[in-house]
């Protein structure tokens, strides 16, 4: 039987679309079976596109508008248990409303793929980007990825099902897209053919874990202290196993689709001889790259590393790329009130990853762009100047500095 998907995506095309639209197309290309929606800005644009694609017959899925985010995530969790490929998503406090379901989805090892349209946590109300929503699940067994372009959003969505549904992994994955900057901004995206996607993405097979009368298992009975530790250990090992699975999948992705970075975990920009390396996630890459190009013209040796996978955290890659520089300038579009050095989440994870290195660079933290405030080229210059001063004097006056904030 020929599906609509196969007729629609027969040839490659280039489309001017947003990150949300790119992920919606990925849903059609991946032939997702069950998708659940609930409105909250800015992620919900993806569901608007999904519902249009479904309404126009671009693909066949059960599209369910749930009555809450909690139900949204519970529905896909259970659909995944019977073997269906699933997609859902949320933003900000909506993601938090689903928190219980999000926790058990990882605990149950359901390969649900979700989009997080990163948004500040109300109150006070704010639509703009902050990374605290997605980061809140960092300890639970979700793979977390931060996207910088619409093309990457489409590509990593296809990667997400491939990696999450690998029987060695069976962990959910969230694709984080900066609210507005990515969810609503359009860019040219190369849309692959359904045939190529089928080559890359095998069907989801839950094997002997599938809930079905032919396989009458009991899922998630009470285990208490007798078994919980062993089960947690299995999730831990799944996250470790995800690393080579991601590498293999990315190599094959590049082979089939002819695009991608050298590493699936981080993206490097002018790092080879850099004395200062800025580290950040998401669409921050844009102003940072502009600032670096200008500073390079003045002979300053500045580079940038964009962390793509936050979980599993690219410890080895970051140690290697940051080993040669004098100072690391971590930009957090998030906060962790009361944390070590009263700093950001990325900063503290990164600094702890670098601690065992014999020769450690200085690590400074900058909190910037909260609530969707734009990070300008000048802001980046300020960060670099503060970092340069730490290099010159050998003293870090302040470990974490808020940039672009009214004092």
């Amino acid at each position, binding site marked *: *039987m020929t*599906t609509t998907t196969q007729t629609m995506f027969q040839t490659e095309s280039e489309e001017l679309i947003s990150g949300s639209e790119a992920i919606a197309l990925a849903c059609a290309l991946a*032939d997702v*079976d*069950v998708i659940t929606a609930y409105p909250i800005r800015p992620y919900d644009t993806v569901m608007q596109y999904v519902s249009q694609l479904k309404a126009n017959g671009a693909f*066949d*899925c*059960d599209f*369910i508008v*749930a*009555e*809450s985010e*909690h*139900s949204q995530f*519970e*529905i*896909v*969790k*259970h*659909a*995944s*248990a*019977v*073997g*269906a490929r*699933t997609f859902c998503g949320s933003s900000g406090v909506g993601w938090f409303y689903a928190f*219980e*379901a999000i926790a*058990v989805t990882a605990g149950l090892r359901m390969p649900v793929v979700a989009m997080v349209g990163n948004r500040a946590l109300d109150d006070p109300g704010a639509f703009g980007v902050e990374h605290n929503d997605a980061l809140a699940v960092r300890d639970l067994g979700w793979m977390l990825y931060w996207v910088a372009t619409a093309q990457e959003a489409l590509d990593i969505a296809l990667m997400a099902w491939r990696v999450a549904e690998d029987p060695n992994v069976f962990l959910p994955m969230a694709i984080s897209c900066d609210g507005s900057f990515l969810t609503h901004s359009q860019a040219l995206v190369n849309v692959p053919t359904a045939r190529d996607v089928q080559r890359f993405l095998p*069907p989801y097979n839950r094997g002997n874990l599938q*809930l*079905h*009368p032919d*396989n*009458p*298992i*009991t*899922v*998630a*009975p*009470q*285990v208490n202290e*007798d*078994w919980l530790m062993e089960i947690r250990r299995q999730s831990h090992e799944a996250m470790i196993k995800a690393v080579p699975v991601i590498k293999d999948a990315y190599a094959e992705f590049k082979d089939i689709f002819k695009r991608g970075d050298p590493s699936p975990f981080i993206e490097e920009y002018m790092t080879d001889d850099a004395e200062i390396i800025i580290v950040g996630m998401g669409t921050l890459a844009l102003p940072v790259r502009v600032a670096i190009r200008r500073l390079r013209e003045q002979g300053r040796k500045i580079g940038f590393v964009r962390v793509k996978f936050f979980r599993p955290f690219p410890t080895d890659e970051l140690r290697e790329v940051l080993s040669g520089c004098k100072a690391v300038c971590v930009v957090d579009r998030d906060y962790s009130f009361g944390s070590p050095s009263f700093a950001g989440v990325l900063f503290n994870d990164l600094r702890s990853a670098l601690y065992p290195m014999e020769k450690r660079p200085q690590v400074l933290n900058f909190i910037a762009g909260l609530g969707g405030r734009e990070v300008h080229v000048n802001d980046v210059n300020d960060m670099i100047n503060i970092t340069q001063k730490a290099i010159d004097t050998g003293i870090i006056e302040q470990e974490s500095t808020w940039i672009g904030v009214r004092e």
Partner: protein
Amino acid sequence: MTTVQDLPQVRGVKNIPLEEQFTSGHRTCQGCESALVMRLMVKASGPRTIVLGSTGCMYVANTTYYSTPWVVPWMHTQLGSSGSAATGTAAGLASMMRKGKMQEEPINVIAFCGDGGGVDMGLSAISAALQHDEYNLLILCYDNESYANTDIQVSGSSPWGANSTFSPPGSETRIMNKRWKKNTAPMLATGHPGVRYVATACGSYGLDFNNKIRRALTIGGPTFIHSIDPCPKGWDYDPKYSHELGMLAVEVGLWVQYEIIDGELILNGPSRAIARGIRKRKPVEDYLLRQGRFAHFTQEDIKFFQEQVDESWEKWWAPGVVPFHLREE
């Protein structure tokens, strides 16, 4: 809509299937009526069934790793998620069968919840599940009238005045739970007129229970059954009286047995006889005084309770079911 299984109504208790789908391995209390409800539920549905169980007694006491009593596939779901679990399971099956990713066959999808999970926390998800006419599913609320698994705390389905660890009678306040039991099944039936089957049930009436489960699973679309489950621990009585207390709840008119099939309300069992005047309602006192949870009741409290039950039979639009009436013009 996928097709449904052939599960004929059973006449005579001897014709109930012998095969058990819920067997040994559970750790429920002696006299637990909900364990019987689980057994009757899957006995009626048969082996081609997936059961989703939300948090509560029938999760915690029923499924211990390595000693599951479930012969049919079973999966835990969160306390407020029986509706979502049923929807997600049914949607996953329907989608994959339609797209040729799974062999097509009617599979029963049953999600159960306690009164805490159904009447309180899970109400919105159950309501949403009942709006999806395209999925065949049954949500069964086993109501033991408290959060019985977590030490007996009052729920929205606990009776007025009942002693619980969150509503203990004290020296200053005798009646801590001032809420009247929520009228759940009629609320769901009225609010979702597209639902073809809503019923109340009681494990004391086994054959009736079996047939209600089967009707719910074969009529098509989402359905709801609310069952009253006497609980020796929470209601405080000798475990040997569970069955008898279930019958008493019906006979005093506190629990009304009925089915709402395609918009038609049909009282059944003793409730039908009471409504027709064939049988007299027993005094509520007969029921209350058998249970320690009402031991602090004064004669006044019992009188108040009786008045509420009388009103539901004498003044309501449908006795014991629909709590209002049309104003006479």
